[in-house]
């Protein structure tokens, strides 16, 4: 098994830098999904979008999380499509709340679902279906404020379900643990909607902890969550999810999530944070250098390896 970082001999394929991936594939006005349910949230991609001053994006995520609070505070988005708006385990996303509650400094359009609704939208988008049926929304006020959530009679006359329409982002950005240069990806731990968001999107940026030889991927094809077939760019950017986590690589930085609460309550502190941790830095490598190596000792778990499985070698008989 031979691993190679971005400078480690994995040339060619779709491998590029975060700067070039975002510059080349994310356009003003695009619908963009940076997915990952608590796990594998690619903060580094969000920071690069802020640095490049993208504007008027429609941002999609089940849980906007701290990264969308940062992006929306930085003014990259005019609309948010979501299902749960908070700082998980901590409280509110104050920059987003200011825009929603007081149009401060500008209004933010909301398009709101439940989690199952968002999951079903990505799944319909990934499946080429005009809608996905689900048992939810009965007697909830959500369909009243979102006309895209509609009632649908079962064709077998056995009752009513609801439907949601497909979500097909212009660009989905998904973080994974392992990818090869063609964008074939192994993911483990919480899968969130990484697969559905990738298959649903018109363009896909994969960001990985490790760029690995294709033989590593092919040693366990059942672990491949996203095939290179749907991937346009591969960025090797270790630790790009901080303060979110990558199962087996680093822990969630709960202290940062708690600290964000007081930063985001105060627009001046938030602006200073963006200046110090995003605008003043050229890349995620600068961010990691600024964090320092010590932080990672606290965040690095002990090893806990899976039992391998035997696929068998079936050669000409």
């Amino acid at each position: 098994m031979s691993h190679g970082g971005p400078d480690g001999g994995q040339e060619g394929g779709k491998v590029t830098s975060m700067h070039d991936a975002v510059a080349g594939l994310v356009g003003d006005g695009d619908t963009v999904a940076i997915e990952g349910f608590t796990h594998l949230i690619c903060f580094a991609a969000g920071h690069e979008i802020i640095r490049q001053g993208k504007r008027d994006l429609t941002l999609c995520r089940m849980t906007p999380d701290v990264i969308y609070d940062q992006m929306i505070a930085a003014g990259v988005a005019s609309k948010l499509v979501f299902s749960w708006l908070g700082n998980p385990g901590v409280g509110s996303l104050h920059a987003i709340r200011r825009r929603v509650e007081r149009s401060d400094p500008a209004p933010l359009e909301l398009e709101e679902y439940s989690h199952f609704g968002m999951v079903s939208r990505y799944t319909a988008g990934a499946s080429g279906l005009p809608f996905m049926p689900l048992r939810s929304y009965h007697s909830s006020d959500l369909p009243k404020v979102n006309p895209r959530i509609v009632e649908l009679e079962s064709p077998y006359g056995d009752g009513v379900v609801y439907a949601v329409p497909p979500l097909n982002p212009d660009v989905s950005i998904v973080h994974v643990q392992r990818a090869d240069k063609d964008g074939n990806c192994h993911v483990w731990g919480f899968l969130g909607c990484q697969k559905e968001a990738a298959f649903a999107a018109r363009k896909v940026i994969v960001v990985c902890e490790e760029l690995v030889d294709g033989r590593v991927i092919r040693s366990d094809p059942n672990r491949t969550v996203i095939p290179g077939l749907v991937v346009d760019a591969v960025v090797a950017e270790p630790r790009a999810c901080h303060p979110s986590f990558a199962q087996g690589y680093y822990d969630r930085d709960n202290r940062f999530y708690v600290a964000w609460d007081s930063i985001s309550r105060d627009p001046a502190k938030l602006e200073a944070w963006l200046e110090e941790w995003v605008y003043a830095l050229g890349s995620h490598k600068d961010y990691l250098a600024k964090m320092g190596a010590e932080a990672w000792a606290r965040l690095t778990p002990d090893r806990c390896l899976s039992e391998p499985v035997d696929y068998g070698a079936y050669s000409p008989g």
Partner: protein
Amino acid sequence: MSASPAEYSVNEMMIAASARQLEGEKVCFVGIGPPNIACNLARRTVTPDLELVYEAGVYGADPQRLPLSIGDPTLVTGAVSVTSMFEIFSFYLQRGLIDVAFLGASQIDRFGNINTTVIGGYDEPKVRLPGSGGACEISINANRVFVIMPQSRRSFVEEVDFVTSPGHLAGRRPAEWLGGGPYVVVTGLGIYRFGDDGVMYLSRMHPGVTVEQVQANTGWDIRLSRDLVLTDPPSELELNLMRNELDPEGIYTR
């Protein structure tokens, strides 16, 4: 040996009472915060075999530490199964495999209709709350819904500002809904259940609480059980587990 009222907090009472409600349950859809502590307390007391399901995609979690977030990596390592969120919602929840699910609430009415979306109007909210997450479909599909929430006139209201998750509506749930809806509500003051007409009633009061206090913190005329009894206070075992193992920093229990 049980502790006296002075020796435990309102939240400790609420969580211990919630954990006891899980006796006999098998599969529980867990939320973060107090529900998470209640479920893990139940696994160490009344129901050791309780299987924990988290919407992030876990069945049979075996957390080695108290997860701060609903998506903590300790919920994955050593779990029975980790799967996509589509499958958790489709194959577990919508298939009817969830016995009990916990929901929180910012507002609840007498029928168990829950608001976690906005205080005020939707388009010009006074307070923008997190929204549904999985709560809307959980309230419709889980066999029984347990609600844990703080109680006051601002949370126990005559009419919720927004129905995020439907309860017993105005007394009847349609036949095509899989789940039975809200089954019990546990607050810092007592334990509530629902009558056949879908209306909430006070079933138990926590030690030291009065009926007057309950009514003062309820936005409608609260109905009382004919055999209203007192909750047992948290036991030493329950308090020790919460204080030393499950929430040593006291984030949710103090």
